[in-house]
Every structure is written in C-alpha cells, then in structure tokens.
C-alpha cells in the first residue's frame, strides 16, 4: 500500500505536472488557511458566568442601597 503511494508520488510529477502543481497549491493553501482560521478561532476560558455573578452582586447592592434610602413608616 505504502509502496503504491510512493510509486504514484514519484511518477506523478513526471507523468502529470499540472496535476502535481494543482495538488501542491492545494496543500499549501490548506496549511495557510487552517493556520489563519485557527488564529481567528483561538479562545481562552469563558468568563460569562463570572460576569453574570458580578451583575447579580451589583444588582443586590443597588437594591440594598434603595432600601436604606427609603424612609421607614415610623419616620
């Protein structure tokens, strides 16, 4: 199997130069495009849960402040 592939790859550039060029261009494109897409998709650990936590903390603090500012019925 490996021998057949090696034979094919050895014969291909001589027998079919245009096909070989097209395959080489495709290979180079795969390397460049996958690198570009990987760089654009790389992400670190998600912080949405932590941000939501702080939003809740701020909301609770705002509620507490409002309650303090509201005059009591005795006043």
């Amino acid at each position, binding site marked *: 199997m490996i021998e057949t592939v090696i034979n094919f790859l050895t014969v291909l550039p001589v*027998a*079919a130069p*245009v*096909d070989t060029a*097209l*395959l080489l*261009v*495709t290979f180079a*494109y*795969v390397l*460049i*495009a*996958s690198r*570009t*897409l990987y*760089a*654009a*998709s*790389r*992400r*670190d*650990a*998600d*912080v*949405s*849960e*932590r*941000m*939501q936590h*702080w*939003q809740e*903390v*701020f*909301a609770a*603090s*705002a509620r507490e*402040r409002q309650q303090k500012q509201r005059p009591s019925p005795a006043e």
Partner: protein
Amino acid sequence: MSKADFDKAIAEIKRAAFSRQGLKGLRSIRALLIDVTFRQELEEIIARSHNQPEERAAIAAALAEIKFAFSDQRAERTEQHSQTGLVAIGGGVALSASAILAVATQILTFPWLSIVPLAIGSYFGRQGTATNKRLALEISTLNDIVEALDDRIRSVRHDD
C-alpha cells in the same frame, strides 16, 4: 458594596480584557459594563472617595487599562477579519475556480484529482465565511465595550 469587592470586580474584568474571549464572554462583559447598577456602584464609590483624588485616579487608570486592552483586541480581530476574508474565502474561491478551469480546459491527466482542490476550497471558503461573521459580531461587541468604558472613564474624571 465595599470598595474591596468593587476592586475585585474590576480585577476580574481586567483579567478578561487580557484574555481572548468568545462572543458569549464579550457580550457578558458588555452587559455588565452597560448595566445601570454597575454605573450606580461606580458613582457610589466615587462619591465615597470624594476627598481622595488619588483613589479616583486609580479607578480611572484601571478602567483606561481595560479599555486599551479591549482596543488592542479589536485591532487584532479587525486584522484577522481581513486576513480570513483574503486567505480563507478568497483563496478558497480561487482554488475551486482553478480546479473547475483545469477540468474544463482538459489540462489535467487525471481529471478526478480536481475533486481534491474543489472540496478543500469549498470547505475552507465556507469555514472562512462563518469565522468572518463571528469576528464581525465580536468586533461590534468590542466597539460597544470600548464606548461604554469611555463613558465610565469620563464620569470618573468629570468628578475631579
């Protein structure tokens, strides 16, 4: 809320600003920064530190540092957006077109080989389009974050 808790929140936002966040993470940061309770808390902290200009300056500096980190991220993603458009989409279309052209002009010894560049060109073109769409949304969210931080920094400095 104590100043220490507020500082903890700012420190966490700062850590997030220096990491690469996805759309979900960026949207949650934006939601926190534009939230009215965040603004109220900031105003409360500023009011409490009325006689401590160095404390207000430290808050403004921390917010500015976060803003610059997000500005850098925006610049990086804008560059990636154009790179993806050029390499993944443009290259994919060009590769697929060259495979079709090669078959049409009967220049290939093994015409079936054209399936390889055609399939790869189409796949990366499609992936590039999806990535570009996501990057555009992230850039837009980063714009909102930088704008919100600008507003907050202005409100801190306004009290000086």
